């Protein structure tokens, strides 16, 4: 059935009037929508302010595609079983223990219930069939990806009469001793003061704020590529940290992977990724190798390469391969630069031909014989080379040769706000705010101190978004 709500909400959106809302949700991604829907279902009158225009709504959730989900038995969308203990162990593995165990276990334990709730709100999952990634045991894939998931949530929200403002950026928060009063919002450039009894802050990190990144990384940040939305400016995060909210996570850290250097500055998303690095060698602008490309399986290593490339001169590097490995990695959206000889390839890539040629020759000479298998830690390694290549080392000798430029691609930042298990903001003086809640990336640092587990961001957003919505509605009613 076609609902009358979409037209109504479009009408309202044009005329924001002075209403005291029960719950104001800042942000428009997965966590924000989960909070808005949950608050609405708990009886609250909800307003969502999303800084992006409608076409680009949804923050970085629009680039996601799956959610990591605990489960005891195989289902239509997940294979095998994935217990709380294994899940938690994986989390400890990537974070090195930098996690709030109580919140982490809450997220893990609530994930199956979250998945059921998602289905009830129109999200569809893909049958577990093998797919492109070997994540079918741990992660449930959304049919059509994150944007399709968001479309379902927005449709559900409109149907329930949740009011949504696009092009609406929070520029100020009026707080009185840790209690939220009202928010200043720029709606299509017009300043509006919005009053609400409670607020859920689900507006992401600051990865798209180049100025802020430069505070941490210096001018190198100018050469970073932002993989996701250009709207995650971290404005709300800064407002909170400047107003007595306790921070969590390392301000100097961001999750960065090596992506195709030809990617657009923002929003390039999944298609700019390159997973060919362990199949060849990686050189910097002097034509020299700088790290062991075969240190470990790629899913465990891809996240360090953003930082490695960022540390090179001009924040750029090149992956060099030969035609033996073509077909063993996912195609990038940009074609490889190819040439019949290594010096010719170097010239095409704008690298010193002699240096690259010497690097490749030295590498080829140090390769020991072995049985190549890029799916396991095979015995193909180098000897007497610094840095070594510990696995998948094969001589680069079969033309045509391929090259891909690499840049650091920033996925998200770790700095966030500390929260209680009810997602209430913790203040620096140790108290917790009675009516301010946070969900999603802005508080993910409580659980993910460093590293990343594929699909865990969506788990955090869904679980804590729902808690924040429910608790905010409760606080507004009480």
């Amino acid at each position, binding site marked *: 059935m076609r609902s009358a709500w979409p037209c109504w909400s479009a009408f309202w959106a044009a005329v924001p009037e002075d209403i005291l809302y029960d719950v104001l949700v800042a942000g428009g991604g997965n966590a924000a929508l989960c909070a808005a829907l949950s608050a609405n279902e708990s009886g609250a009158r909800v307003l969502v302010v999303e800084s992006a225009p409608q076409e680009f709504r949804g923050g970085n959730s629009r680039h996601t595609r799956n959610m990591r989900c605990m489960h005891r038995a195989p289902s239509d969308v997940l294979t095998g079983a994935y217990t709380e203990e294994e899940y938690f162990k994986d989390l400890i593995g990537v974070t090195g223990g930098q996690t709030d165990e109580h919140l982490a276990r809450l997220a893990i334990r609530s994930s199956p219930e979250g998945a059921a709730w998602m289905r009830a709100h129109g999200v569809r999952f893909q049958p577990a069939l093998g797919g492109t990634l070997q994540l079918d045991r741990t992660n449930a894939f959304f049919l059509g*990806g994150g944007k399709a998931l968001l479309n379902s949530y927005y449709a559900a929200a409109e149907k329930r009469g949740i009011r949504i403002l696009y092009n609406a950026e929070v520029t100020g928060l009026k707080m009185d001793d840790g209690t939220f009063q009202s928010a200043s919002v720029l709606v299509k450039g017009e300043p509006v003061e919005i009053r609400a009894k409670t607020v859920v802050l689900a507006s992401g990190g600051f990865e798209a704020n180049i100025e802020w990144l430069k505070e941490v990384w210096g001018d190198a940040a100018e050469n970073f590529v932002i993989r996701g939305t250009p709207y995650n400016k971290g404005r709300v995060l800064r407002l909170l940290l400047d107003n007595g909210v306790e921070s969590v996570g390392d301000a100097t850290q961001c999750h960065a992977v090596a992506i195709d250097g030809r990617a657009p500055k923002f929003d390039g998303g999944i298609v700019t990724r390159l997973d060919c690095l362990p199949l060849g060698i990686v050189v910097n602008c002097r034509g020299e190798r700088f790290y062991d490309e075969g240190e470990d399986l790629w899913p465990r290593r891809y996240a360090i390469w953003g930082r490695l490339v960022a540390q090179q001169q001009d924040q750029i590097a090149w992956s060099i391969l030969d035609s033996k490995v073509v*077909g063993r990695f996912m195609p990038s959206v940009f074609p490889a630069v190819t040439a019949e000889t290594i010096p010719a390839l170097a010239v095409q890539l704008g690298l010193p031909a002699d240096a690259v040629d010497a690097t490749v020759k030295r590498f080829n000479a140090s390769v020991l014989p072995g049985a190549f298998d890029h799916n396991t830690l095979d015995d193909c390694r180098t000897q007497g080379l610094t840095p070594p290549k510990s696995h998948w080392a094969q001589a680069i000798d079969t033309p045509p040769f391929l090259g891909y430029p690499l840049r650091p691609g920033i996925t998200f930042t770790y700095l966030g706000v500390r929260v209680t298990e009810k997602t209430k903001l913790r203040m620096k003086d140790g108290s917790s705010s009675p009516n301010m809640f946070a969900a999603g990336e802005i508080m993910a640092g409580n659980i993910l101190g460093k590293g990343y587990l594929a699909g865990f961001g969506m788990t955090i957003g869904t679980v804590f978004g729902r808690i924040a919505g429910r608790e905010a509605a409760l606080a507004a009613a009480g």
Partner: protein
Amino acid sequence: MTICNACRYCEGYCAVFPAMELRKSFTVADLDYLANLCHNCAECYYACQYAPPHEFAVNVPKTLAEIRLQSYKKYAWPKAAAKIFEKQGYTAIILLAGIISVYNFYRFSRPIQSVAGGDFYAVISHRAMVLGFGLAAALVLAAWITALARFWNSGADPPVRGRRPRRLFALTTAISDVLQLRYLSSGGAGCTYPAEHHSQSRRWFHHLTFYGFMLCFGSTCVAAIYDNFLGWKAPYPYFSLPVVLGTIGGAGLLIGPAGLAALKLRRNRAVIDTTQDGMDLTFIALLFASAATGLLLLALRDTPAMSGLLRLHLAVILALFAMLPYGKFVHGIYRTAALIRYALERMRSQPGR
């Protein structure tokens, strides 16, 4: 397509994306194949993180719709007939007018007696009817088979090895996909047509149209058997098999095309190739007109209006027939062929034993 192949978020939606993933690069024939696999449901457009206004401006349904029309023209036989795809409305009107005037000329050159109630063959002789439609059917079949062969032979198998396909199984899989319109159901939720929310309406209206058409065709076949083998002459009683089949089918052909046209007017113009509206609407109009004139003829067959209505009905049917290989109808032929190819590929790409 390179963007799609690097992203693959849409692989769960329909056959187009798995078929795409079997290929690393795309020839023109590959694109024709993918374009004819696409049912234009637009799910992938709404789910696409790269859809306009993103700078990559990916629009799979619209791009494939454009390629699809080009493929209809490219594989058409005879070659010169490809132009008909661009001038559908005019062709239909000229055809109709032409058929009616030829009939009138024939009739006035050989004056006949007044028409008795319900006697069709007094209006047009049995021989003329069989001759006219037999000729049209032969031409239509020849054009279809030639075009289909061209389409089928242009495609190459993807570079994968695996089990040898069981052809019969592939055929039945594909036919069942066609008969159920599996890829317009989007796993039960319905496709995003005419706009962003999911709906089964297009699938049901297409079912009414398709099965209505088949029932009418069946009615004609039964009548032909009655007439030629059993010696039972038309018109048949209201509760005879040909009339019942024709009436139910005709009702489907009234509601189905009308519904499809109504949906068409409400659809999101961002995801379609609007230059094809003429082709789509002409086919819809001819189907609707053939049912409308047929049902009217049935209702008024014992009145003096019969003679005029019969001529009009036969002219519409003949025009519809003549345009079958050069209009929207061909989508069914190419799509079925593409789905058969897809079913074969799927089997081949599964690991061998």
